[in-house]
């Protein structure tokens, strides 16, 4: 039974983006979002409709790239042109 329950969660209960925003303070969690605007080393990141600023000091993304954001900084560009619920 436990295994079936776990499998259910595994398949159906991926974290939603809103949950991720709540958990944003977690130190090692990083959230993917799409770069929609760049202004010097600041980027506007679109997380499924919610926008937030992030520094692009340590990567050089282009508009349209998906990036992984940790503690206010984009830390890497996602290699595939896709975004998941989490990374």
């Amino acid at each position, binding site marked *: 039974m*436990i295994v079936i329950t776990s499998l259910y969660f*595994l398949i159906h209960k*991926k974290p939603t983006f809103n949950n991720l925003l709540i958990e944003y303070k*977690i130190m090692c969690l990083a959230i993917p979002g799409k770069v929609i605007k760049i202004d010097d080393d600041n980027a506007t990141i679109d997380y499924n409709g919610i926008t937030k600023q992030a520094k692009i000091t340590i990567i050089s993304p282009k508009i349209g790239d998906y990036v992984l954001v940790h503690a206010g*900084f984009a830390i890497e560009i*996602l*290699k595939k042109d896709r975004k998941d619920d*989490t*990374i």
Partner: protein
Amino acid sequence: MPVDTDTENIISEIKEIAEDINRPVKIMEVCGTHTQTIAKYGIKTLLPENIQLVSGPGCPVCVTPQRTIDSAVRLAQNGIPIATYGDMLKVPGTEMSLEVAKENGSKVFIVESTIDALKLKTEYPNLVFLAIGFETTTPMTAWAVKNGLDIICAHKTIPEAMNVIVSNQDNQIDGFLNPGHVSAIIGTRPYRDINAPQVIAGFEPEDVLKSILMLLKQINTDRKEVENNYTKIVNDDGNKKARALTSSIFETCDSEWRGIGIIKDSGLKLKKQYQNHDAMEKYRELLKDLPEPKDNKGCRCADVIMGVIEPKKCPLFSKVCTPDNPTGPCMVGTESACKIAYKYRGDDNA
């Protein structure tokens, strides 16, 4: 209802290989965010009996020594505003946590980033940022120091701690799930000297299961390699720009890990030209005669972060030590093994 056959296939293959290995296997997930995924999705319940997952030291609040917390508390009590990441507030110091200092009237702020800390500094010019975290988080501190932030530096590096765990005779770890976002910064190379099977893993439950399978395949064929199962983010070189930023501000030093002790070359300190931002130096006089650190009797956080025991084996777990009243640091952070085990304790899977 669609059935995720890929996941089922991975689980079947794990069972086959585990049977073939035919002995107890202990795998350490180094990163607290992996611990969360494992508990949240009940991954332990999907594994064969001879495969054990244990948590590791990749929880910044768990390994930050009491003296560091005591220093921040002392500064706060002397009117110097302290900013830090949220999880740090509840971590018990020798006499009190930063949260208690805040309740007693000291200025202690939670920030989500060093960007926010710098903004606070415009209002509180003598603000000090208590900087914790591993390679993923260090570049953000480096950037802020460059922009004028004063810090108490408690940054640490992961591969050196993994080396200590590998050489710990009390605890035979058969393989590591390596932290994904630390690896995004440092790449794959720094792990190559660690004498154990390792797989760099992402944070989806399927990523963790696949990485466990890859580890078991290594163990079953006596290989000790560093494999990358998080290629959409991690490459061999890591993020060179981030590392250059870090090394322009910090240099390597020996560092104390709470519960583990001093680990050679496992910490970072400010380079000479940035030492004017080192709050420990700046307020040296205030920090004299700090209380002698002592961990609470019976707390087995040290054994938990070394993978020697699971949280439930600690005699204080959920009886005396709870998230509302933590005895040790492992019951505090969102990435802390005991707190995660407490949260999912009813599911028998943490």
